[in-house]
């Protein structure tokens, strides 16, 4: 040591340590709930999970049997929602990243995207009822519910895609333009291939978001209980998230483990896709050559 520590230095060090520990505790208090919740759900819902629980129909007024129609319904909703929102979201992100000038319109678009993500889910549900169920006359159906979900989760795709497009170095584009390629040729042959995995990360994240939503599908296409499976996008369907709400609050005499089991399946689906998206992103970052 060249200098001896003065009392002031010591006090500063102490303060620093104190705050470090304080903030560490805050982080811990924030992340422990995830682990506690998971542990509780696994402990209480784990025993009920079986092949029958996953692949059988509900029986005895949903107090026994499985959740297969709800699981299948969630797959329907997610797939149709993705078909609608991914092309639109990717195109919107391409516009924002590759074409949009820095003006009031672009700013309004960005503000609209923030707002789409920020509008309460129940307001999205009201919009779905007004626009798709009534105005376009789809009725309460998978199509109406998926369109509502698609619009609600559009920001997820747009933001992820835009980020991944912008991480492609500008020099790549310039090199391509110099070869006489048009803007679109550059985007299709150079920008998109370099950004595709980042876009995929966003799409997986959207699967996770879409499968967990309840409020937007409550009145637009998800039913409490249906005796038959949906056959087309114009049928109603059951859904996992809705099923959890129903067995937890609406059905009398449900055995204790039942809603825990449904919650465990739902959270597994959501977190699995989320974790997949995160690990994919970390893996890609390792691969980046520029």
């Amino acid at each position, binding site marked *: 040591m060249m200098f001896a520590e003065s009392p002031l230095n010591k006090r500063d060090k102490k303060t620093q340590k104190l705050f470090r520990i304080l903030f560490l505790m805050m982080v811990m208090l924030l992340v422990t709930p995830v682990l506690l919740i998971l542990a509780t759900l696994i402990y209480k819902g784990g025993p009920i999970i079986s092949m029958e629980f996953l692949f059988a129909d509900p029986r005895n007024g949903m107090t026994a049997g499985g959740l297969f129609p709800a699981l299948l319904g969630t797959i329907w909703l997610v797939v149709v929602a993705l078909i609608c929102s991914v092309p639109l979201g990717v195109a919107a992100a391409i516009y924002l990243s590759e074409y949009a000038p820095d003006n009031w319109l672009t700013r309004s*678009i960005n503000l609209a995207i923030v707002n789409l993500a920020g509008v309460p889910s129940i*307001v999205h549900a*009201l919009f779905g009822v007004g626009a798709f169920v009534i105005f376009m006359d789809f009725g309460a159906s998978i199509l109406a519910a998926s369109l509502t979900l698609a619009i609600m989760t559009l920001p997820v795709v747009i933001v992820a895609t835009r980020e991944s497009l912008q991480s492609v170095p500008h020099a790549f584009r310039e090199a391509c333009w110099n070869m006489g390629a048009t803007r679109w040729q550059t*985007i299709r042959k150079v920008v998109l291939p370099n950004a595709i995995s980042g876009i995929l990360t966003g799409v997986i994240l959207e699967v996770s978001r879409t499968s967990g939503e309840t*409020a937007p599908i409550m009145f637009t296409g998800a039913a409490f209980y249906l005796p038959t499976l949906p056959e087309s996008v114009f049928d109603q369907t059951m859904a996992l998230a809705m099923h*959890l709400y129903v067995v937890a609050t609406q059905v009398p005499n449900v055995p204790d483990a039942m809603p825990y089991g449904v919650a465990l399946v739902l959270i597994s689906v959501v977190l699995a896709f989320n974790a997949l998206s995160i690990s994919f992103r970390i893996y890609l970052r390792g691969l980046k050559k520029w």
Partner: protein
Amino acid sequence: MSGATASQKPSVLADDQPDTAWYVDKAVQVIMFVAGVSAIIFIIGIFIFVSKEGAGFIGGEEMNFSEFFTSPRWRPTSEWNPTYGILAMITGTASVTGLSMLIAIPFSLGAAIYIAEFATGKTREALKVLVELLAAIPSVVWGFIGLSIMNPLIIDIFDVPVGLNIFNAGLILGLMSAPIITSIAEDALKAVPDGFREAAEAMGATRWQVIYKVVLPAAKNGLLGAVLLGVGRSFGETMAVLMASGHSINLPENIFDSVRALTATIAAELGETAEGSTHYQSLFTIGIFLFIVTFIINLTADLIVRGVRKG
């Protein structure tokens, strides 16, 4: 592609004629533009369609502006004298949101500071992933947790008759909005140039002094924006409040009273109303109110964050 329009265009070089690739390029640009503005179209569409369904109520004689906002009596299904007052629900939403922010703001800002300024390497990555996973838990699962885990715990610990109340819902909403605030606040802290930190450290400041005197003031607006987005999230949350707040119309006196939120009212009642009835329209009117409030919150957050970037 016909050359008719192409030949009318003045061109310097003979081979500078628009070819197929040129037309494809222009067409694609139009498509991308339409997709780009779709977000604006949807936001306007949401406002128009929700207003359209609620219009009958706003213009109708059942609606009385001062009664709507100042009466705590919400009895839309009463046969004799239906009343439409949302004051109790506004109080419910405000109290639950307020409590959730009291919990979420200190913790998420603290967490953001730790992740952005103290944690390094693997720890930092792991914490960020955990925060992201916390944000991913669906609201209906949170509601279920409030209903079946927190409810008996609150009854036991605080010796109150009902565990579904402001405290329960506020705590759940706090946990739900904390990861949002944390990750946006962390971005705001990361956006402070390293040069600021280095300059302060070169002057002999400790890490905490750097944070307190340099980083936090520089990131002030971003942090405020993060908090506002957290408020918006908490305010608009539906399923979790519906299941954890007790859902009873009540002007609360303490945090162990059950309340009802604006969002939850729509979720609980829309399914039971006939399309076009006054009750149905009044629920859409609540929707317009929710839309406008969240719009203002998001706009303010955007302006604040923008302000710092320009300045």
